[in-house]
């Protein structure tokens, strides 16, 4: 794929395949970027992904702290209802969500890309399970020293929960970066498209002789950033899968 992206247009179709391009050309990349603003897409994707991920970690940890550590009437019932929302597939909520975004006039804005994904029942559940394992003695002694609930959350629970927070961060980041259906629905203008949607749009635009070489160049542009992030963070990623206990044990 990388090799094809550097080939002259006609040479993608040779058999046997030429593994090493001859000559190497950069034109496909230049043309892909001239055709569509992939740099814009990358900035959009990075911005929405980072914003969503930080928000998810923030809201989930606050909610998880409340469900795990605070006592208030109806807590367990609310938690069950909250978990119940995990059962409903995203496709069911997608249509009402879209209508909501439209009512707010948020279509083609960052709000539509970020806000609906800023809460995660899965994240809350994951962090709650982790928070429950933190000994109560720590909290009690902090209370005796006069710390407020928020202070206990910020200064005791959060630092202890770093591995779980990192796991949630990575999962959300990967999921958001590659998410496709929702951005596809709520973006129409090029200025707000993310990489996945942009690539799909590009597929519709590109055509003719140079089709595959261009498409491969564009795909490389889309794949590289996330692969880089993965290669750097992969140790934590695999650990995260084991830690969350989704191996069913």
């Amino acid at each position, binding site marked *: 794929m990388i090799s094809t992206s550097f080939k002259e247009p006609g040479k993608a179709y040779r058999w046997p395949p030429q593994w090493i391009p001859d000559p190497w050309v950069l034109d496909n990349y230049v043309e892909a970027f001239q055709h569509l603003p992939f740099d814009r897409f990358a900035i959009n994707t990075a911005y929405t992904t980072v914003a969503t991920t930080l928000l998810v970690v923030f809201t989930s940890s606050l909610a998880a702290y409340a469900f795990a550590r605070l006592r208030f009437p109806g807590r367990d019932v609310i938690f069950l209802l909250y978990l119940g929302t995990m059962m409903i597939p995203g*496709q069911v909520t997608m*249509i009402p969500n879209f209508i909501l975004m439209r009512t707010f006039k948020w279509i083609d804005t960052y709000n539509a890309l970020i806000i609906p994904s800023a809460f995660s029942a899965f994240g809350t559940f994951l962090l709650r399970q982790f928070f429950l394992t933190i000994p109560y003695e720590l909290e009690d002694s902090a209370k005796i020293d006069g710390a407020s609930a928020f202070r206990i959350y910020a200064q005791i629970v959060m630092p202890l929960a770093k591995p779980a927070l990192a796991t949630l961060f990575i999962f959300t980041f990967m999921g958001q970066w590659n998410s496709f259906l929702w951005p596809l629905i709520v973006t129409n203008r090029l200025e707000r498209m993310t990489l996945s949607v942009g690539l799909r749009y590009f597929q519709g635009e590109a055509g003719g002789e140079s089709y595959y070489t261009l*498409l491969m160049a564009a795909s490389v542009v889309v794949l590289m950033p*996330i692969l880089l992030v993965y290669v750097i963070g992969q140790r934590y*990623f695999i650990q995260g899968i084991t830690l969350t206990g989704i191996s*069913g044990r």
Partner: protein
Amino acid sequence: MSFALGFLEWDLLSPPKFAGLDNYSRLFTQDTLFPKVLWNTVYYTLGSVPLGFMCSLGLALAMNQKLRGIVFFRTAFFVPVVSSGVAIAMLWIWLYHPYFGLLNGFLSLFSIRGPNWLTDPRWAMPAIIIMSVWKNVGYNMVIFLAGLQGIPQHLYEAAEIDGAGIGARFRYVTIPMLTPTMFFVIVMSVIGSFQVFEASLIMTNGGPADATRTLVLYIYNNAFQYFKMGYGAAMAWVMFAILFVATAVQMRLQREWVEYE
């Protein structure tokens, strides 16, 4: 809100009309495409879940060996999982190309004339299944790997003392100890495969002759391309009902074969 939407007829431009159960009855009696879409989704599930299960379990067993460079392979198999589904689909369009694609080129080395993968109604869905299995195999592999490494070593040692060979150890130690993991993988794969969307949108756009139009793609078509919001919502609820029943059935069957310590 979504549930209420299922009873409306609404194109977002004119005010919504109450339609009662019309959306649901139309779905099951008049929409001739709906049974096909449903069948396509089931076909995809029946194809990809068992195949993905076997491939990922096999890979996990291989990756559980203590060999040099194993970390490299574990990483390599996981790369497609974290990659963008859209970019992966683009790559496979090229691999599946009937004349220039690597796949048919490879087959031709054995004098097999490969099919027109994505334009032949018989082959389009298998092509999508193969691609999805390849993309997702790493994820389940890691889960199986975690399950395998959770099996206490002393069980194997005990079995060996009792004279069990490799086959017997696999049959009587590995498999029973792994059933909870297997159960998890199957349930999650079924749920995941019902939501297949990207591959069929990008690679075939539901074609040829609707052979790859899946449930989620059809919901997307109806709600966001034909602006039948109520109809789409009704369909999404049918999908939820199917998944709910399927999961409940699996939970019930679980008692028959999953062994917890």
